[in-house]
């Protein structure tokens, strides 16, 4: 089988920002149990800046690593900047992913977007 990069293994073995946030400002979940990858992202946002982010992931090594990676990439970032990050960017930041993983397990940017969308919807209701 194709090997994971060292960076993927590092994020899989030592995932950053695992867990949940009480009273989050936004929550997003993507994926489905059929293909075996589900990612949920929790956000704390102040003045449109992501002040805290946590994730929970059901999935393979690549799924965990991409989730962990994106939390590092966007913590402290403005949501506008965060929304510019693509799944491809996350994979690149990890030093690449095996081709077979590019579609099924590379969903972190979508999970983040879902969480930010949820935040924006909540804001509009206020």
């Amino acid at each position: 089988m194709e090997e994971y990069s060292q960076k993927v293994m590092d994020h899989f073995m030592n995932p950053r920002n695992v867990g949940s946030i009480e009273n989050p400002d936004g929550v997003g979940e993507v994926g489905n149990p059929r293909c075996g990858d589900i990612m949920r992202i929790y956000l704390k946002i102040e003045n449109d800046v992501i002040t805290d982010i946590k994730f929970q992931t059901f999935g393979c090594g690549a799924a965990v690593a991409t989730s962990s990676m994106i939390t590092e990439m966007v913590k402290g970032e403005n949501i506008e900047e965060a929304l510019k990050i693509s799944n491809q960017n996350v994979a690149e930041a990890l030093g690449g992913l095996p081709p077979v993983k590019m579609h099924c397990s590379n969903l972190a940017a979508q999970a983040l977007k879902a969480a930010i969308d949820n935040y924006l919807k909540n804001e509009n209701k206020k």
Partner: protein
Amino acid sequence: MNQKIIYFDNAATTRVSPKVFKSMMPFFQNSYGNPSTIYSLGREARQAIEKAREKIANSINADKEEIFFTGSGTESDNWAIKGIAYANRKKGSHIITTNIEHHAILNTCKNLERNGFEVTYVPVKKNGIVETKDILSAIRKDTILISVMYANNEIGTIQPIEEIGKIANEKKILFHTDAVQAYGNIMIDVKKLNVDLLTISAHKINGPKGVGALFIKKGTNIDSLIDGGGQEKFHRAGTENVAGIVGFGTAAELTIKNISKKRKYLEELRELTIEEIIKKIPDTIVNGDRIKRLPGNVNVCFKYIEGESILLLLDQLGICASSGSACTSGSLEPSHVLLALGLPHEIAHGSLRLSFSLENTKEEVEFLLKNLPPIIERLRHMSPLYPKTKY
């Protein structure tokens, strides 16, 4: 890394045993002649092949003339299914198999479906075993072949081959069994089983990779798959893998000698492992019948987590195991075998298969049992599906 390897994936492949390796050595550099030649160097190779053929035949109570060497279990399966289908097309075009077969059978059947054959995939029951009566009711007037695996490669369940053989014989339908996983674990007697064709492979019994065999009962009408020279009585062309075949013969002999000792020992390891896993890890499902299963097969699903993650963490400890998750099966779907048991997708993704050999020790199993629960716990706490994960 000098970490000790703990090999619990013997259903995937096995280590070549020292005696097997030694028996193969002369055929690389000394007796390297082509077995089809007339001079002494070639005759030595020919004799060695025939001796190996005899050993394989003895190991399944077949005649020497009924054993044909191939390049793998997969090739033997392809040959059995396609060879029978095309040779007997005038009699009919219907084939019966099960929905838990190895891909070597399933994808060969899919190929035949694209070429005008019809295939019935009889579903297994929740315990991973097909019922003989369900095979019986699938039989049609134009059924030419039944193919049912002897033991399943993922969940180790043993199928009622003797019963199905009896029916096939009565109905005069040819019967093939893929015995790759059963061979070396269960005593096989082709006469008692009433099989016309039977697949075996060397590398699952501490023999080398790249060599398999197909038992074809005398008088069976079968087309060849590989056309070319006159090897294997014009049934399977290509210069023989002499060293591999010799190794296969040695492995067969050794494996049959140890079969009852192996069975007892592996059953002990299996039972210890299953009992302890259930005791230590809640929300665990044992896949496949608890009794009618291969002595060294453990297959469990841990709810709320995914299999590849388990394998990666076990690998960090030097433990080699296997899973039926989508990632590890190289597709987008979890194992067809686990789905055939009626498991939902998210549970099927969390499977772990351990397959033991005589080389494994109780200490290795205890090491696994000590380290597995925290691995499962760790992944569950990362999972959004786990009810105990805090929100």
